[in-house]
């Protein structure tokens, strides 16, 4: 209960969003939302369907460009960047409906996650022997750590297309982790999972959070889960922020309750 508070005092702001406005051809997806994410915390974004949660993540990793508002990441203000540049800044994510590379093996998928950490140019790669291979091996070692960590050694070489849903989610998490991100965005990591799988996933998320100290922003529908693992929660509804704070604060917030119970405003 007071452990997150301590965190907050210690930590500095890793990400800060100021008055974000986002609309698609007149339709407002996000209106004037501001919130921040602290170094090393687990931040949850919740809200009913169509509240603009996913849009929020897309704004954070630069897939959408808000019409208004400022985005500060790691102490620097961000001006319209392409998603791949943002990846280099240290933001990784998973997707609501799995976006793995179907044609590749588990290993290759996670290796692809190392993209931003490999720098040998085309000529070295063409040669393979020497630097390129060395780099490959080093990264392979790191990837193997992640594979062990996620307990998917057995399916290393299997094409991801053949894996069951739960494992695919896990691999996708692995791919995101491989990038050693400062901040990890998880879009409904537990959607459509059974209880055991959810428990595993929770464990992984928390382990990631303390072992690698990765900051995590996640969207989740399962309130129980959110309340368990999140340090702080943002509540969105119809593209507006209607609540922000520790789980307890949010839990007892009237507007939030109304929004969820669907009381007419």
């Amino acid at each position, binding site marked *: 209960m007071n452990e997150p508070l301590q965190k907050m005092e210690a930590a500095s702001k890793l990400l800060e969003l100021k008055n974000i406005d986002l609309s698609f051809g007149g339709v407002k997806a996000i209106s004037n939302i501001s919130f921040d994410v602290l170094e090393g915390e687990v931040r949850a974004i919740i809200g009913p369907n169509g509240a603009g949660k996913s849009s929020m993540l897309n704004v954070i990793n630069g897939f959408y460009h808000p019409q208004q508002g400022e985005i500060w990441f790691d102490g620097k203000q961000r001006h319209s960047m392409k998603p791949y540049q943002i990846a280099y800044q240290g933001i990784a994510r998973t997707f609501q409906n799995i*976006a793995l590379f179907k044609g590749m093996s588990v290993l290759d998928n996670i290796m692809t996650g190392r993209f931003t950490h490999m720098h040998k140019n085309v000529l070295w790669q063409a040669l393979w022997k020497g630097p390129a291979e060395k780099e490959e091996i080093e990264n392979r070692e790191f990837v193997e750590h992640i594979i062990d960590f996620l307990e998917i050694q057995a399916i290393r070489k299997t094409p991801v297309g053949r894996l069951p849903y739960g494992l695919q989610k896990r691999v996708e998490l692995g791919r995101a982790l491989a990038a050693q991100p400062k901040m990890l965005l998880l879009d409904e990591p537990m959607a459509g999972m059974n209880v055991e799988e959810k428990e595993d996933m929770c464990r992984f998320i928390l382990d990631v959070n303390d072992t690698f100290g990765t900051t995590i922003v996640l969207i989740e529908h399962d309130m129980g889960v959110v309340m368990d693992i999140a340090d702080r929660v943002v509540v969105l509804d119809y593209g507006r922020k209607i609540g922000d704070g520790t789980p307890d604060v949010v839990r007892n917030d009237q507007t939030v309750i109304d929004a969820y119970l669907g009381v007419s405003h």
Partner: protein
Amino acid sequence: MSADFLYTIEVILNGLMAGVMYSLVALGFVLIFKASGIFNYAQGVMALFAALTLVGIQTGQIPFSHLINAIFGTNIHHFGWQVPTVLAIALTVGVMVVFAIIVERYILHHLVNQEPIILFMATIGLAYFMEGFGDIMWGSDIKTLDVGLPSGGSRWLEDYTLGWAAEGEQYYGMYLDKLDMVASLVAIVLVVSLTIFSQYTTTGRALRAVADDHQAALSVGISLRTIWVIVWSIAGFVALVAGIMWGAKSGVQFSLSLIALKALPVLMLGGFTSIPGAIVGGLIIGVGEKLFEYAIGPMIGGATENWFAYVLALMFLVFRPQGLFGEKIIERV
């Protein structure tokens, strides 16, 4: 009016007419792509095959006579009768329907749910097959196709417009090809009837349903197989029409299959899924390439039409990736 202006008009009009001829071919592509998501490269060869069959039936050719002669040392080629045009056309349509059934039965049926590129390659295989088959069936000599279509420029128009140019300028009147005019009429009739068919008949609605969503269509109990047979039959009919128009222009021979290449930029421009797109796209391509050849061509050595059609479509596409009337491509995360 100055002669140059009149010439430009003439070029534009002829461009429009040529465009219609391209659209006739493009239509077939669209129909099949819309209903089955197949980019049917064989459309051009289907046009050739249909035209060959028509002429063959009309002139009472013996199918496979060359093969028969080669095997049995006989020397047969004609039955020695003439089949009236209308009947011949009807019979040819019949042949194309049979063709559609065969294609569905032995090819598409086995390739359901494959990636588009696989289906595309299959149709190229089909094209190869039919090139060989058509030649063996009807022979590879040039055949003149005579279904009583007019040809040549319209005298009336020429005389009528003769006076339009300013005094003292060289002007010979506006030139429009009768065949092209007929083609335009046919195209209009074709499109209208296709639209009516797809709007007001049960089968038509079924087609649209399939086009929108296979699963949904299946779930309401529409048999995909029959739909595909119908679509390919219609495409075969469209191919026949295109074959007649082009065949009347250049005689029926192998090259007829290459008109497919003229239709591709039209598809790009109009979108693979839109019938009006095929028409409008054709018109734009036709006018575009003719105007370019007229205005710029002479400066850079001419024969620009083949590539300019594509470049035009390309430039257009860079600004509108889904084509003129193609459904919007939405990228969701």
